């Protein structure tokens, strides 16, 4: 690790002002990506601004049909939260299969979506549920937030404060774990909104990061059942391929995981 200056911010405002003072500052959430990258000397922020102790970034609120998870809430706290389990159990389940216990104790939802790893689990949930990403400046629709591999709509120095999920009528998530990293080799989140819209998002599959899967959405619109997806054809072009999964395999997984997610959603 290169030398850096560590700051522990006590409020979002303080974090923003510390960020502005640093020459190449970085926000530190759970650190599950940033710290290993720094240890490998692949990142060298001048200043590291820890958001972990900011109270306003912690917690979960359920208000009517909106579930709001503050950005600094850890995976462990999310998967244990009664409101999450009640309102959107698919999110509790997604969180329970994310990483491993050590990752779940440290990692946060804000850190995950800000990083936008193409194989991360949360982006699929946000995209399928039509969530809104709240920052210290604005609210960004999930459709606009994720902009390709490790790229988001966040501006320099902008801090995610919370994610608001409309509570769906039905939702489900299934993933095939990457055998080594335990990220999603491919994961699919399906949602049927209370207004009757069907949204399906796949992570870990596309070369451009999390994506909607219109063919499956159309099939489910006609018939919300796993078998409705049998006849869907998913193209392998533009899908990721690596030593753990060919593009054809990932195309298959999009279908199979979608079917299982629908079954899980009920």
């Amino acid at each position, binding site marked *: 690790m290169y030398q850096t200056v560590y700051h522990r911010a006590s409020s979002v405002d303080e974090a923003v002002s510390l960020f502005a003072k640093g020459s190449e500052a970085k926000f530190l959430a759970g650190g599950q990506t940033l710290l290993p990258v720094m240890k490998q000397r692949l990142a060298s922020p001048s200043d590291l601004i820890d958001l972990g102790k900011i109270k306003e970034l912690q917690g979960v609120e359920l208000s009517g049909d909106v579930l709001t998870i503050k950005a600094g809430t850890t995976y462990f706290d999310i998967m244990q939260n009664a409101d999450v389990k009640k309102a959107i159990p698919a999110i509790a389940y997604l969180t329970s299969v994310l990483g*491993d216990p050590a990752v779940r104790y440290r990692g946060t939802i804000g850190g995950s979506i800000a990083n936008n790893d193409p194989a991360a689990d949360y982006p699929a949930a946000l995209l399928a549920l039509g969530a809104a990403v709240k920052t210290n400046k604005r609210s960004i629709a999930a459709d606009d937030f994720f902009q390709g591999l490790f790229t988001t709509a966040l501006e320099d120095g902008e801090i995610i404060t919370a994610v608001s999920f409309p509570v769906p009528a039905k939702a489900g998530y299934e993933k095939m774990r990457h*055998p080594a990293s335990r990220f999603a080799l491919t994961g699919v989140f399906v949602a049927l909104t209370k207004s009757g819209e069907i949204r399906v998002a796949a992570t870990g599959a596309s070369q451009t990061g999390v994506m909607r899967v219109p063919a499956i959405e159309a099939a489910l619109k006609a018939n919300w059942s796993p078998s409705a997806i049998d006849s869907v054809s998913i193209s392998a072009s533009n899908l990721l391929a690596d030593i753990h*999964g060919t593009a054809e*395999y990932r195309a298959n997984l999009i279908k*199979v995981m979608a079917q299982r997610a629908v079954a899980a959603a009920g």
Partner: protein
Amino acid sequence: MGVEGIGARVVRKEDKRFITGKGRYVDDIKLQGMTHAHFIRSPHAHAKVKGIDSSAALKMPGVVAVLTGQEIVDDKVGNLICGWAITSKDGSPMKMGAWPAMAPETVRFVGQAVAVVIAESKNLARDAAEAVVVNYEELPAVADVHAAIKSGAPQLHPEAPGNQVYDWVIGDEGAADAAFAKAANVVKLDVTNNRLAPNAMEPRAAIADYDSAEEHFTLYTTSQNPHVARLVLSAFYNIAPEHKLRVIAPDVGGGFGSKIFIYPEEMVALWASKKVGRPVKWTGDRTEAFLTDAHGRDHVTHAEMAFDANNKITGLKVKTYANFGAYMSLFSSSVPTYLYATLLSGQYNIPAIHAEVIGVYTNTTPVDAYRGAGRPEASYLIERLMETAARQLNVDPAALRRTNFITQFPHQTPVIMAYDVGDFNASLDAAMKAIDYAGFPARKAKAKADGKLRGIGVSCYIEACGIAPSKAVGSLGAGVGLWESAEVRVNPVGTIEILTGSHSHGQGHETTFCQLVAERLGVPISQVSIVHGDTDKVQFGMGTYGSRSAAVGLTAILKAMEKMESKAKKIAAHALEASEGDIVIENGEFKVAGTDKAIAFPMVALAAYTAHNLPDGMEPGLKESAFYDPTNFTFPAGTYICELEVDPGTGKTSFVNFVAADDFGRLINPMIVEGQVHGGLVQGIGQALLEHAIYDSNGQPVTASFMDYAMPRADDVPSFNLSHTTTLCPGNPLGIKGCGEAGAIGASAAVINAITDAIGKNNLEMPATPDRVWRTIHAA
């Protein structure tokens, strides 16, 4: 068996320090004035080193020195050796290229060191290393064994034309050909044994400390065999004579073979310590472990097995290409030859065997012994062949094995090994019963109704362990003897120190070795200490690998114990005014048989040291040593059966049951044996399902971190169902065969046989990843 004697499930003494963070590993050691080394490693698989400019680095804070490959060559530090000479079929010796500790001219694998920075801290050394400019001229590279032997392939070493190290044969080719000419059926199989990265939990580390006044070196290192390390460093690497070099291997966190070898980093640390006049520490990180710890396996094999009309095996022909990587590591040459082809008879009567092994250089990390070393490759091949044969001949796989089992012992195979004892039917019976083999068809049908593909796979392995005897391995080309030594020191108050040449790096010797003492003397194991891992304390030893510590090392302790007990009995008899022949040892006392006359063991010890009243002519003291060289290898064997389900939608494998019925001879501590089997099975399953060290065609490693290299985790493996059948090994007095490698040797074939049974297709390579299984299921 006492509560702490042989056969007792004694909790491991050493675990208290390990689980409370009190272990003392090399990296925990800090010496006064210690500097830190960081190696500059080649990013290229094959390149000329045209120049190294360290001028900027030398000006950086805390930098003590930047040392290069040319300097270590100029100082006449020896090239790394390979300690087992193999002769090709044309009579020529194996062809080895030079391996300097740091490359002065040519790098041949990614990660090979070209220079080292010595600085006041690890971080400062890393900072400075980034300022060292190495000018490389890239050369074409080759990573794949078949590509490497093609004409026109990039050549690694001028000494080895065609990248061929040797072309070695074993067995009787004429007899094998004759068997195939008369065969009723021939079964053919091509298999790849995937390359593995060992990944011991503790990365390798070394601290070298040169004392200029005494011209003496101390090396703390992560070694499975510190005495062998000292011997090689002294005799071949020109570091220092043996009496001027102390090697200490303190607590070591796993080895699996990868810490047998003497690596460049240890040589450089020693040499650099003298050069800079201060202690030098190097602790590898995980990336360095992936790049530089000797890898395991990496075979490509074609095999054919001949059967007569009664399904009896009549012949076996095997041709294997073994990828050695860029250099010949310390025992690499023996692994695909004498540790592999000599086990190709498996548990079966095979009248004629012929095997050819071609050793090949590639631009990859050197390959050497890894848990099982050659024997997993042999067992995997034979057990896949048996399963393939059963399918082709349309007979039950277990029944086909039974038809061909060796049942008379001793049994001389056509490939050197003489099996001393075994009962292969007993372990097969035990495993089949444990898994309810007869009930499998009904379970398979039920799984099918649930949309799952269920399979069962049998693996009947045999291994040659306790590696020894010295005379035999010497005749086969080994550069060392394979005996073991021990010393029993009884202190004046009756506590006991056992000095052993075996080295514990996870095996639990501090417990099991004490159990032998408890068994013989009836003293609690708390009265006994095991001393190992220090060449200044233990006179010599061959270390721990090849499941040899109990069969060879513990037997050496037994021999020393017998000598000590003999003297102690004389002292006791003298004190009790009885005949020596009437003295028996019970519960920590020396008794006159059939009387109530007794003297406690501590009093005997005290008498030996006060020497006030010893038998005439007896020397004072109570300390004995022994060297033990066995008469044969030992032959642990057993049957593993795996039942699993494959999800046809994803190709993912889920275990239903995994039974292991092993014959290890006598067990000293069944709990520790179970732990060894668990660990071995997980490594075998890891190889079968997950692990694969991959290079691209340019020799760039693709799997150099745990983000890409899939290590097995607890949720990847089932809860194992273990049992034991026992035939005592006649080759050592305790009847021990060894248990350290069995799981890794037998498990992978059971898993692949089960998956291929489940999916109904026989061609499936390891690791059977979900993607690979799914594509195999859906292949035309």
